[in-house]
């Protein structure tokens, strides 16, 4: 069970159950014992859908990672390849199958393509002479994976690069398919809003796909009131800034992968007395982070500066609860105390973990360099000195700080200045190439193509207009009891979320001018509903908006949307979908190119 998926306004467990059912059905088609050969990239996302126990129930006895040459020995009837439809993987599969044929008993081979079957890949298998070896060749349309009660992701790392650099819309097609699946489960979404080239394309594909499905009238009462499709390149700024929420900082510093984080083990060593710190664990501590954990759900979206006080308050409550045992006198009271013990112990464990994580993060955030970096970021975002070479960035390069950090800052400056003066741009580029190596010229080209780093066209800087109209910079930010989404970056209100907020109230008509400055078209489409399914909202009932970030979303943006959902007079609750959960570092990383 994944109870945390059903807490939200939309029960995403329905989706999870649907994809689990599909998986079981496929496994049962291949009767008998099985081994699964995994495209390694898929194991993380699959973990969110099905644990090993489910596979085991369906006679999966062995699991391997897909690699060349022979398959490891396994005494099973079926060998199933779980792969993304990629040509290079087909070559490996063919190698596996061919070397398998030459020895021992015959097996049944199958392929499960995730998320889509591919004619191209099947052709390649045919050319390699192995297509006929596969009994079942099917697709598993795992497009959107539920991560939390209000969060779905395709976990497609390369989506941004493919869409904005390479003109490859495969991930947009998958996104549209994923949205069709959602609509099949949660009803037709009556209104679609969008901003950006990719958003337009996804909307077009959805409308087209709907036409293909005429006939099977969807008779489900719509759960979502509207869909907002947003291109990442409409807001290139937000992911570049350092996230300052608890979850955002964990992600910035340690990287959250498929809802898991790996942390340095020292802080988590069991405190045994007299052990003299001998057997310190060397393996990273792995923790799952989602709203199933009560405490985490409470603090994840807070500004990090507000986390400490919650933790210490919790600590007091828990120790008070444990103290209760002294007051338990009668057998009944003791019994009651004991019955609460497991829950209390879990809470204490959770508190200990998060106290340790918070300490780890604090070590970073209180460092001088972190402070300096943040100051520069905030200056850029509030429009100070964006048009000249920045001292701090220069020093970072001179001291050979990590290249990604430097690139994030330079790109941030470029975006906050609608592009850099040619002289400034060339200076940075030269410094980077000389310091980090000329091979990075390819990375710089990529960043330019993506619009993250560019010369200012015609010497006009549009950013101040955008900043003022959308109120992107708020001087009076309250980190403890926020009143505005700008708390997630301690002053900067994420542009993407501001667009969503303004769409819900008072509507985009009020910001036409800014929308025209931002790239790509903005549009609205309606999908007609049969009269029986039209929704009559109860007074005071919030709308539910599905917001889809094409090209990735950060945890800070998610926090800002959750903040809006929770506003008493907000009027809108959000469910968030994306091609990838990301941060500035993983984003730039994906755009980097290393020729050797």
């Amino acid at each position, binding site marked *: 069970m994944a109870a945390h998926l059903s807490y939200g306004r939309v029960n995403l467990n329905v989706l999870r159950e649907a994809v689990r059912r599909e998986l079981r059905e496929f496994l049962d088609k291949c009767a008998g014992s099985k081994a699964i050969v995994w495209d390694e990239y898929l194991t993380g996302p699959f973990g969110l859908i099905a644990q090993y126990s489910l596979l085991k129930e369906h006679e999966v006895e062995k699991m391997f990672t897909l690699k060349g040459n022979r398959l490891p020995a396994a005494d099973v009837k079926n060998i199933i390849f779980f792969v993304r439809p990629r040509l290079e993987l087909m070559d490996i599969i063919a190698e596996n199958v061919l070397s398998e044929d030459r020895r021992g008993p015959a097996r049944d081979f199958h392929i499960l393509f995730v998320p889509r*079957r591919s004619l191209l890949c099947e*052709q390649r298998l045919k050319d390699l002479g192995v297509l006929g070896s596969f009994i079942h060749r099917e697709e598993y349309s795992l497009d959107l994976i539920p991560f939390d009660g209000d969060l779905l992701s395709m976990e497609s790392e390369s989506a941004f690069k493919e869409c904005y650099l*390479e003109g490859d819309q495969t991930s*947009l097609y998958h996104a549209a398919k994923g949205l069709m699946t959602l609509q099949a489960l949660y009803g037709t979404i009556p209104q679609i809003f969008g901003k950006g080239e990719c958003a337009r394309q996804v909307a077009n594909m959805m409308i087209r796909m709907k036409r293909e499905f005429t006939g099977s009238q969807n008779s489900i009462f719509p759960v979502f009131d509207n869909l907002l499709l947003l291109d990442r390149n409409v807001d290139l700024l937000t992911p570049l800034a350092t996230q300052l929420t608890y979850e955002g900082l964990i992600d910035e510093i340690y990287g959250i992968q498929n809802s898991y984080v790996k942390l340095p083990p020292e802080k988590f060593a069991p405190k045994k007395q007299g052990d003299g710190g001998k057997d310190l664990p060397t393996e990273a501590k792995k923790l799952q982070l989602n709203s199933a954990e009560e405490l985490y759900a409470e603090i994840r979206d807070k500004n990090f500066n507000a986390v400490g006080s919650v933790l210490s308050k919790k600590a007091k409550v828990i120790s008070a609860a444990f103290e209760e045992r002294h007051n338990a006198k009668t057998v009944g009271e003791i019994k009651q105390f004991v019955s609460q013990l497991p829950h209390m112990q879990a809470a204490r464990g959770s508190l200990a973990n998060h106290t340790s994580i918070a300490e780890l993060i604090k070590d970073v955030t209180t460092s001088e360099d972190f402070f300096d970096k943040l100051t520069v970021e905030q200056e850029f975002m509030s429009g100070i000195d964006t048009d000249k070479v920045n001292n701090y960035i220069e020093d970072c390069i001179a001291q050979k700080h990590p290249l990604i950090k430097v690139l994030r800052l330079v790109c941030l400056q470029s975006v906050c200045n609608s592009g850099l003066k040619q002289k400034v741009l060339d200076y940075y580029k030269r410094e980077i*190439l000389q310091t980090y190596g*000329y091979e990075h010229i390819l990375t710089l*080209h990529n960043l330019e193509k993506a619009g993250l780093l560019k010369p200012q066209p015609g010497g006009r800087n549009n950013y101040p207009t955008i900043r003022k109209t959308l109120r992107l910079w708020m001087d009076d930010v309250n980190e403890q009891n926020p009143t505005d989404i700008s708390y997630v970056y301690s002053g900067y209100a994420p542009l993407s979320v501001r667009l969503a907020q303004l769409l819900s109230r008072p509507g985009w008509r009020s910001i036409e001018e800014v929308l025209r400055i931002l790239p790509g078209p903005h549009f609205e489409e309606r999908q007609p509903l049969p009269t029986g399914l039209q929704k009559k909202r109860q007074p005071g009932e919030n709308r539910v908006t599905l917001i889809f970030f094409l090209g990735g979303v950060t945890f800070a943006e998610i926090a800002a949307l959750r903040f809006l959902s929770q506003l008493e007079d907000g009027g809108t609750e959000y469910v968030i979908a994306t091609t990838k959960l990301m941060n500035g570092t993983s984003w730039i990383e994906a755009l980097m190119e290393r020729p050797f």
Partner: protein
Amino acid sequence: MWETWLWAWCPKESQKADEYLREIQELGQLTQAVQQCIEAAGHEHQPDMQKSLLRVGLEGRAGQGWEGGGMDSWGSSLCCPLALLRRLPLETSIPMRVRRVLTARGDGEQGKYRYKQLTIQVLLDRYGKPRAGATLPPLSTPSHSLLYPLAIQICEYLRLPEVQGVSRILAHWACYKVQQKDVSDEDVARAINQKLGDTPGVSYSDIAARAYGCGRTELAIKLLEYEPRSGEQVPLLLKMKRSKLALSKAIESGDTDLVFTVLLHLKNELNRGDFFMTLRNQPMALSLYRQFCKHQELETLKDLYNQDDNHQELGSFHIRASYAAEERIEGRVAALQTAADAFYKAKNEFAAKATEDQMRLLRLQRRLEDELGGQFLDLSLHDTATTLILGGHNKRAEQLARDFRIPDKRLWWLKLTALADLEDWEELEKFSKSKKSPIGYLPFVEICMKQHNKYEAKKYASRVGPEQKVKALLLVGDVAQAADVAIEHRNEAELSLVLSHCTGATDGATADKIQRARAQAQKK
């Protein structure tokens, strides 16, 4: 034409109708007229109108002495709906004559038996579905066309869901329609679309496949236009060798796999020039094919960029190439030269110059390796200079910095870091005094402290400018002096910074001093 004509006179007196009918017959076009009449009946929802249309159709049929399967096969296939017909409400009833025909044929034992055996689905299919095969199946003989409207009526009467009922029949009807060789492609396609519209569950591609099977490729293409599912459109178009059309359909769908499939088809079908031209007109397909080439056919990628005069990408291509295969330095430099030339053509002077610098650096690194030994190739310029200093070749490092115009500030950082790594404190001091530091002296303090050399650090702390003085003094642990400076500066932030460094035991006096200064400042 017939449709409108018949339409006009149908409800009128049958006397007149008969006259018209004879006229048509004389023209030798009765078959067609009858069919269209019956089709029209299928369109019509008004029982009266339907009745009339069917009547006209039947009369024509009876008068003509039907060709094709003849009365016999016509009747035998009509026998089954009999029971149904009896259940149809009176107002949708069919003229007595039809009834009679049906009754005559269907009352036999065999007929009854057959009906009992058939489910409604099978019944409908039997009366609607042409069978596959080269010869015209009996169902599509004209005699059968009567049954389409009838079948539809049955469906409506039985309230079958559209997909199971009406849609199937319409699809079957359409398959029959495409076999009418005497009607133009245009008309058939239009007629089919008019009747079928967007009826759910109708597969235009099935109908098109049928048309193609009858050798009517153009009609098939026209019909495919109405097919909303590209996954169905594209394979048939490819089969019919309409690859370019298939390409645009695939692109419309957004299904990149479909686009790839068509592209690989096209690649085999067309000569290279034509293939490239086709790509050129389809930017989305072109970018996909580029991606394909990037992983599968690098040489083709180059040709594509060449064709488009995309010099910027060509430049990047050669940069990549310079790393990929070539081991020898000459080969790498040559690839880089090609890249630089491309960048010049792309008017990207920056990239061209940078690439030329890279060539220069490569050659130099090779020379350094020859002369000094050690590993220099593929180090960055910065790291090359650092390595030189670490190896004690300060002069060469300076020459390198001049040759490549390393900015002063970065050079200072570079030397500072390298000398501190060497713990060559003497050289560092000499360097610090060579001229006024462009990066100030705080970095000197910091780096010495990082190497745990407080003694050296203190030397530089005194030279740190006033703005960073407090910070420097605190770094070397001189809290008392830091306090003095902060008090002198009357800087609140600095005062709190010093205060935060005061540890209870040793710095009590200093802390008091600061508190007093603060109090005094407040008084003023």
